[in-house]
């Protein structure tokens, strides 16, 4: 039973499982998230607004990682690099006088995609653990590069003195508007991501994860397909980074530290490595549990750590079981 969960689902079709794995449920999740800011305002809980925004931002970053990791089997341990680059894109553009999101966000996407595209040409030559480590190495290079940028605060980072404008309007100054921008972008990229996965490109990309030699025998070259997916994921991560820069109004190399890459992997794995929207669940669980536990006790990690172990030992636990659909 336990060895082939996918087999199970097919042999004994339950109505819930397939629905929870379907893109439609992803939209349900986004809708739930979208309810939080409105509830925050109605119930006078402004902090829910902050949390919902943060969840949306990290969900977007985790979603981009899930695209290559969950669907493509590319375990990047350097995903914080394009994420941080997106944040720096906003800061550096603002410094140069381009404060508009209509400029900053597309540039952030391109910068992240460019970084991932270029580093991907090297990283994608390797496999397995070697890939994990080379992505870490490349991200560390980016990290140290930004710590040495003294014009932008070096290791300390720098305050972004105002949020991006939209077509010259200071709409994003309003936290509610900003929250919906983040959630909106999450929804957009979730839909786009699912579409890409269902496309001809996505079919090949997903197939490569499961059986690369088979696809080679069919005439597919893995390298360019993976490179494009890797670059796209980098671009989306950078958009999340651009959002984070705007939310915290601060940019720092800490955004691209290796621990952050690890956090993103934890979110994706917790979300079950299955459909993209698992990343939303993973990000929400990590951030909300962290916030709740740390509010209870300073030593919250002594609870959170065993929790992670238990989740794995209990076979992926509820989240992964419901959403995972990991294929034997």
């Amino acid at each position, binding site marked *: 039973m336990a060895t082939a969960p996918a087999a199970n689902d*097919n042999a004994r079709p339950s109505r819930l499982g397939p629905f929870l794995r379907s893109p439609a449920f992803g939209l349900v999740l986004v809708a739930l998230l979208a309810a939080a800011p409105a509830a925050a305002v109605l119930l006078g809980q402004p902090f829910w607004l902050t949390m919902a925004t943060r969840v949306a931002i990290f969900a977007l970053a985790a979603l981009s990682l899930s695209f290559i990791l969950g669907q493509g089997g590319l375990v990047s341990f350097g995903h914080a690099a394009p994420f941080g680059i997106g944040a720096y894109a906003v800061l550096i553009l603002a410094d140069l006088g381009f404060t508009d999101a209509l400029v900053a966000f597309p540039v952030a996407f391109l910068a992240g995609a460019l970084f991932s595209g270029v580093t991907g040409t090297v990283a994608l030559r390797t496999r397995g653990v070697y890939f994990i480590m080379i992505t870490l190495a490349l991200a560390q290079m980016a990290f140290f590069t930004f710590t040495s940028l003294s014009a932008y605060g070096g290791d300390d980072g720098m305050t972004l003195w105002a949020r991006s404008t939209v077509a010259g309007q200071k709409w994003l100054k309003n936290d509610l508007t900003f929250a919906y921008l983040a959630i909106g972008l999450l929804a957009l990229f979730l839909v786009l991501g699912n*579409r890409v996965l269902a*496309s001809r*490109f996505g*079919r*090949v990309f997903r197939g490569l994860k499961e059986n690369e*030699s088979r696809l*080679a*025998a069919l005439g597919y070259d893995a390298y360019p397909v993976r490179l494009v997916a890797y670059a796209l994921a980098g671009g989306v991560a950078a958009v999340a980074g651009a959002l984070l820069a705007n939310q915290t109004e601060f940019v720092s190399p800490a955004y691209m530290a290796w621990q952050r890459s690890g956090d993103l992997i934890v979110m994706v794995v917790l979300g079950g490595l299955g459909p993209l929207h698992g990343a939303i669940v993973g990000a929400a669980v990590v951030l909300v549990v962290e916030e709740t536990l740390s509010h209870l006790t300073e030593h919250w990690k002594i609870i959170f750590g065993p929790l992670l172990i238990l989740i794995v030992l209990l076979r992926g636990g509820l989240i992964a079981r419901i959403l995972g659909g990991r294929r034997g």
Partner: protein
Amino acid sequence: MADPILKLDDLSKNFGALPVTRHVSLEVLPGEIHAVIGPNGAGKTTLINQISGVLKPDRGRVLFAGQDVTRLGVAARARLGLARIFQISSVVAGFSAQENVALAAQAKAGSSFRFLKPARADRAIEDKAAESLAAVGLARRADVAAALLSHGEKRALELAMALVQAPRLVLLDEPMAGTGKAETERLTELLAGLRGRLPMLLIEHDMATVFALADRITVLVEGAVAASGSPEAIRNDPVVRRAYLGEDAHA
């Protein structure tokens, strides 16, 4: 006589100091089913890996469809029309049977760098895939995940994936390995139905299958060609009988 679709020219390969392929030359003619047999360790799999491009020979050339492909990779050879069925069934386990065949069909039908249009909306590909599935008798299993197919069904699925690509040659690496008797018969029938339309290079242990299907047989012993000829000639070749069939005839 037509030009051979595949021609191996003096192929040699060593693993370290151990020669595993020695001066092998053979041809597959259009429409022909050419079987390679040999005892275990004769270097059959190494040979097929050199043909498909997984391994590069130390010496010699591989000519496919009139082109020297010795230096080309697996994917490039596949794009030239070389399809392969693996010794151990190799399909995309998480995909449905239909999607597996569609994936194969897609490789032959335009660029895969299309990002937004759902792949399933491509009727031409889906129809071709369904047709190919029907041809191997899997029409009713189209929506089942490949992982859940029986062993024989997986082999048939692989065949469907090969067929949908309209290949110029199919490499079959022990297609009957591990299949039951009934399934072996069904598969043999399927392959026999393709005779004349599709050239095949067949590596197989099951002698019944080999002699039922092959137009020509090459016997490989210790990496070298020991004999080559019609099934009749091979059956009667004293060298082969001694070196190979003699030991294996009862197995």
